[in-house]
């Protein structure tokens, strides 16, 4: 049995009194696309944000259980948070370019890591913009402001910005929710390329998208993991009644 890339063991999470995640355990294999789906406030985004400890910033929250990446618990006290977040990249629901140019956005993570070598950054710039399928659109205006791009381009820029750090894991939180269908397809197509290099976890913005991109999918409902199986099975022959109801649109 191959060691999974990520192993989630008995994770409970509370926002104040609200039990946001209820005893979640699952294993996520490397070099594949894993989908977390389910109705709003079911815990999928919370689960995602726990994997690079972005929820640490939120006050008044509590967590128990462990999350292991490559067999190492990322909630151990000796974990370097900055280094963890370089290894586990995140793309948010809204495109959030930082103030500055396209180039500055892509190399920002390298700058934080203290990498200034010009050859290296130029190489990373081109590679990550190509991986995010936006290179051809921006290669002639790398020094123009990032927020002059369209929403779809901004989101692919944000993906490139995460890829610049060559993360082992890429977390995508509804990355196409603000995008038009053509941009959405570009992002989805790039996922097929990216999973050869990275382990991808995505919260999709629709059930159709979930079915299109999933190698395996996990259904979250009210903080519980209801069903977690290969995408080819869960969307065509769900075992759980609640999963079936959600997929067929009977609720949620």
């Amino acid at each position, binding site marked *: 049995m191959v060691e999974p890339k990520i192993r989630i063991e008995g994770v409970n999470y509370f926002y104040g009194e609200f039990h946001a995640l209820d005893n979640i355990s699952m294993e996520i294999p490397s070099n594949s696309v894993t989908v977390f789906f389910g109705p709003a406030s079911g815990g999928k985004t919370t689960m995602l944000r726990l994997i690079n400890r*972005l929820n640490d*910033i939120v*006050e008044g929250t509590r967590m128990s259980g462990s999350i292991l990446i490559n067999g190492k618990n990322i909630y151990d006290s000796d974990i370097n948070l900055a280094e963890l977040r370089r290894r586990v*990249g995140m793309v948010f629901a809204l495109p*959030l370019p930082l*103030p500055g140019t396209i180039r500055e956005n892509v190399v920002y993570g390298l*700058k934080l890591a203290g990498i200034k070598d010009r050859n290296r950054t130029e190489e990373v710039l081109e590679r990550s913009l190509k991986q995010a399928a936006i290179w051809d659109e921006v290669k002639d205006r790398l020094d123009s402001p990032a927020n002059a791009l369209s929403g779809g381009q901004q989101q692919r820029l944000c993906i490139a910005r*995460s890829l610049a750090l060559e993360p082992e894991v890429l977390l995508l939180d509804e990355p196409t929710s603000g995008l038009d269908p053509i941009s959405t397809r570009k992002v989805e197509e790039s996922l097929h390329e990216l999973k050869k290099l990275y382990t991808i976890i995505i919260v999709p913005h629709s059930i159709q998208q979930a079915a299109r991109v999933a190698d395996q999918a996990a259904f979250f409902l009210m903080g519980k993991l209801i069903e977690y199986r290969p995408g080819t099975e869960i969307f065509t022959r769900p075992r759980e009644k609640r999963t079936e109801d959600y997929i067929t649109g009977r609720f949620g």
Partner: protein
Amino acid sequence: MNRSHVQKIGFVFLTLCAIAVVAPILVVIGIVFIEGVRVMSWEFISAVPHEGMKEGGIFPAIVGTLLLTLGTAICAIPVGVGGSVYLAEYAKDNWMTRAIRLAIVNLAGIPSIVYGLFGLGMFVLFMHMGTSIIAGVLTLAIMTLPVIISTSEEALRSVPTEFRTVSASLGGTRWQGIRNIVLPQALPGIITGIILGLLRAAGETAPILFTVAAFYLPRLPQSPFDQVMALPYHLYVISTQVPGMPLSVQYGTALVLLILVLSMNFVATIIRSYFRRRRQW
């Protein structure tokens, strides 16, 4: 009376309000300029006063005010900006930070003469600094701090939280996010706070009255422990304490003070708009 009449009356009323706001400022500047420009000469701004301050210039007072403002900037800006970064970015919301904020708001409302008395008691007497530039600068800096802190904190808070989250998600420490993203974005607002605070410091008489200002000192200071003349206090002195002082000299002094303050404001506005143009959200 139909709606368009109401609209017209309302419009006229609002225009009058706007005029009522601007007119006094223009009148003040106009009178000071017309009356003061008569004594304006190279000698007036570059020579020391003599003949009981009725003749000569006001050079020591100009230098004094510039020194006091510069000293206030050096003391107040690092502490003020640092304090606002702490309050906006690091401090948890608990009773202590709420008490600090309450204190800052109240400090901003304290009359300047009270700061003057505090400076006298604290720096001049208790800390044995004597009536000196350093005592005056510290008094002015304390008076300026609340303005800088509260406007800077506001500016920092208006930077979207998402920038901090994105920076953290790319492996940035909290300080890296503040240093690279938040501070540059908040800079125009921070500069506004600094200008407001320093302009007040440059124009105030009360805080320097007991702590630094010299009645008549026709030479330049040699050390931070010397007294200096300063424009606001000098204006007060020649307007009330010296009999037979020509009115034109008083207006001339007022004009120099106005020009000094307005040009500081102008330079700061240019700096601010430069940084604002670079801001992108």
